[in-house]
């Protein structure tokens, strides 16, 4: 078998794979540098200089509108509000709490249902036909006011988190305690993601409690889960709560 695998291809692929964990570790070191860098203008850690000590919420790419969180059962189309000016992508996190298939226009996560173990499909749908060199997918522009397809098996309980942004991969930023806040991207899944509290305040909610570790009660029309606390930009102060179990209409 060995001789049939192209050694040139395998070697190039291996080099790329070996670099992946190192790149991630580099990002972690940069976060640490921010944490440790109070009063220090620049700290070299693994060749990476410390960033300036601006608040994480200022460094992170802001959402262009309040994120949408809806739930449903089976294949569906989720209609979003009109994209705000400047929006070029809608970032999506589709969590499927049962079923074998969890797909959006840009990809899918397939596999058998594991109770208590959500599948999460991450996607970025372009809103314009303007070529983006950073985007390898080259999907046709989406019109979220016409609906975003949720491609799941019949009977699958799902939750969709959607947020408008002006770039394919929004920048995340570290809090003082090392947690990261921001909009999910292909490179980073933050600990805290933007959300709108029921009192109208914008803040941040726990990504894992929204998706992988949500463990909601599955209902006839979607899911049922207690509202999540919404945190201020410090990631700690609770400023409200976010409803995460609204059904898709």
């Amino acid at each position: 078998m060995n001789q049939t695998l192209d050694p040139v291809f395998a070697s190039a692929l291996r080099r790329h794979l070996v670099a992946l964990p190192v790149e991630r570790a580099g990002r972690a070191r940069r976060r640490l540098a921010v944490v440790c860098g109070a009063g220090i203008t620049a700290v070299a850690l693994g060749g990476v200089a410390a960033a300036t000590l601006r608040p994480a919420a200022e460094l992170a790419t802001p959402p262009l509108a309040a994120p949408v969180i809806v739930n449903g059962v089976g294949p569906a189309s989720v209609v979003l509000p009109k994209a705000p000016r400047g929006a070029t992508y809608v970032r999506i996190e589709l969590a499927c709490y049962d079923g074998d298939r969890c797909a959006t226009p840009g990809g899918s996560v397939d596999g058998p249902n594991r109770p208590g173990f959500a599948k999460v499909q991450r996607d970025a749908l372009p809103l314009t036909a303007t070529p983006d060199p950073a985007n390898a997918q080259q999907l046709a522009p989406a019109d979220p006011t016409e609906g975003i397809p949720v491609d799941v098996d019949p009977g699958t309980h799902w939750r969709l988190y959607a947020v408008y942004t002006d770039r394919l991969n929004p920048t995340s930023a570290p809090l003082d305690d090392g947690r990261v806040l921001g909009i999910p991207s292909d490179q980073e899944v933050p600990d805290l993601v933007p959300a709108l509290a029921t009192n109208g305040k914008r803040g941040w909610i726990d990504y894992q409690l929204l998706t992988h570790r949500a463990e909601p009660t599955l209902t006839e029309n979607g899911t049922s889960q207690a509202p999540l606390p919404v945190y201020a930009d410090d990631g700690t102060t609770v400023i409200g709560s976010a409803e995460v179990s609204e059904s898709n209409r």
Partner: protein
Amino acid sequence: MTSLDEAATWRKAVAGDGDAFGLLFDAHQHRVYRHALRMLRDRHDAEDVLAATFLELWRRRDAVRPVDGSVLPWLLVTAGNLSLNQARGLRRYRAFLQRLPRSEELAAAAETQALAQVGLDVDPALLAAITSLNATDRQLLSLVALEDYPLRVAAEALGLSEQAARSRWQRLRRRLAQQHTPDSLTFAAEH
């Protein structure tokens, strides 16, 4: 992989050790490639699936569960899914895959010879049967019939109880028999 503590190596990779990730690639690249090649019967397509499978291993590292201390069952399941759903599954990596260099020296004749040497002649009826199944049964059959995993390991890789896997397996056998699929499948599953 006999001398390598794979579970520890995987933990090191997730913690940022690139060399550890490289060791896992070294250990499993050929099994994953062969699995894809059996399904696709095209060297370049199988290479694409191999690459996408390891990229998915990294992208979904938080959700990967080693089975019996090995990530190979997860890799095979993923490679199987990607092989049967190339257009969608590989879209995310298309630009990257196009940049990876390929040898031109492997002529078609040599490729054909190599395929024959390694016994990749999977019965077309079996392949057709595999593609006609739902995702779980497809993976169950692939792991057991093509990769010789015991049913217990296949069940764990797929997140099924052993009893559920055995029940699915019995249904599969009946269905394959109805489809006149050659019963070359006495399988490790029976053990």
